[in-house]
């Protein structure tokens, strides 16, 4: 009896542990598997646990119809937004990281401030402005609203990228007679490239997943996948919405799998917003 008690306790502990692991797996993967099953369900009547008829009908539908157009639109917007944001953010981040400039504190507040406020009411008022300027419901309007938002989120990672480039190297370049511009292009920029690429990828993913701004500014003419998904989900087109959800999630999950080991908290923190 005395010897069996610890063994029993051990067994109970092990069972509790296995149950916890199973629960964690179920909680994380349950909602996602629900998406996968819905996307492959050609016929699914309650209360069957699984669909009566499986098939790829809705996936095929997705690749032919409106969904493909939205996908391409979203991709085009994401490419433009990423390019513009990198071009705007890199020099500004460098200037903020290196130099004492007038109104620096004000500029920093300007780029922190919008993060503290809900986007919806701001964009609702922005959309009245965009209507006046005739860019609401157009690609240019959606690009503009996303560039603003992505700029705010990416500037901080870019500033920290440039801060991590040792200043000594630039000083060495100056000592050799290089101008500031030359030091930037030949020394700092090449060293910052990995960080810039990482934050560029994050901007790209952000743009693909952006919902609020695109819905408010782009509707009803510019539809990206998240907006399309919202519309089909509200219309109870569960299969189409699930296929769209999975397509939207693929780039982010691929990114996770490919770059798992390099992902640092500072880069990933922008994901808290997508």
């Amino acid at each position, binding site marked *: 009896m005395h010897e069996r008690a610890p063994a029993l306790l051990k067994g109970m502990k092990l069972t509790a542990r296995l149950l916890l692991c199973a629960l*964690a797996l179920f909680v994380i993967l349950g*909602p996602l598997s629900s998406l996968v099953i819905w996307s492959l369900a050609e016929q699914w009547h309650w*209360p069957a646990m699984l669909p009566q008829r499986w098939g790829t009908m809705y996936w095929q539908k997705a690749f032919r119809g409106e969904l493909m157009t939205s996908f391409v639109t979203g991709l085009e917007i994401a490419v433009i937004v990423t390019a513009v944001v990198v071009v705007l953010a890199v020099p500004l981040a460098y200037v903020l990281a290196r130099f004492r400039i007038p109104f620096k504190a004000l500029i920093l507040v300007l780029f922190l401030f919008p993060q503290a406020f809900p986007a*919806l009411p701001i964009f609702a008022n*922005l959309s009245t402005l965009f209507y006046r300027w005739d860019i609401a419901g157009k690609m240019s309007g959606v690009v503009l609203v996303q560039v*603003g938002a992505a700029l705010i989120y990416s500037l901080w990672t870019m500033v920290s990228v440039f801060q991590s480039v040792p200043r000594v190297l630039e000083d060495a370049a100056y000592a050799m007679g290089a101008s500031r511009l030359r030091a930037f292009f030949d020394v700092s920029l090449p060293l910052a490239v990995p960080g810039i690429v990482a934050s560029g990828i994050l901007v790209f993913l952000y743009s693909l*997943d952006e919902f609020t701004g695109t819905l408010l500014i782009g509707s009803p003419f510019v539809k990206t996948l998240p907006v399309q998904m919202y519309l089909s989900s509200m219309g109870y087109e569960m299969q189409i*919405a699930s296929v769209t*959800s999975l397509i939207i999630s693929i780039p982010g999950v691929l990114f*996770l799998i490919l770059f798992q080991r390099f992902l640092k908290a500072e880069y990933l923190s922008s994901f808290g917003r997508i």
Partner: protein
Amino acid sequence: MNHSAVLDGGRKRIWERLLGIAVTLPPVALVCTEYVYPFLLSVRSSLQKNGRFSAENYAYALSVYGQDIVFTIFVSALSVVLVLILSVAIGGYLTLHRNRFWEFLFKIPLFIPFVVVGHAMRTFLAPKGLLNSLLSQIGAVDINNPPSFIYGAAGIVIALTWKQFSFALLLVMSAFESVDHSYLEAARTFGAGTGRQILNFLIPLSRSSIGVAAVLILTSFLQNFSVVMMMGDSGGAKHIMVDIYSIITYLNDLPLANALGVISYLLALAPAILYLRGELTKHA
């Protein structure tokens, strides 16, 4: 020193300054037009009724949507508490017992966009969703009268917690990593188990990082739009972002939406202000 060289240096300086201004101005102008100006517009419009200065929009917003404001605070606060408990417990465990599989698994929600989380939870938790049909297999749920997990507070809390738990875990674990591990070794030598090490060492030593994470996440819940929109409308209390959107699209009453919007600005700022005040009084 040669006079022209000095002049040349001066000219270079001005040239560099101009370049600095040239790269700073466009982003600053963009943020001013897209955030600061609409922000000011929203405040002004919220204070106007029929072209005159008035607080009527606020009175109306508070009387009609007051319950939804309370609901928003309630679901956000409850979610953030759940997120913190889960992320500290699991983050602490994984810091002390590294496991790459579970670290990967718990990172997944971070990469699933908010909109997708909303829809996934809708299919999963709906009365006729996967969860209920699984539960009915083991007899835990009555098929003819399935419970609804999706509508009202429960659905939103589950969806928000599921998504941001992952983000919190990331922040919490990076704070735990930076705790000096010799403390933990010392604690282990004296027989402290996993729970003791988390409660008595990891949490107190990373209190400020956990506080910052809590503020960030609470703010993100208070301003969340995509998840609460995707979860749909149950007819009961709603998140105020859903209210703002429906006031704009269905009632077409921008001043009223803006009054609720300004209230949402204040709500979103509150956690940061409370946190900073707490920090200041602690150090004073």
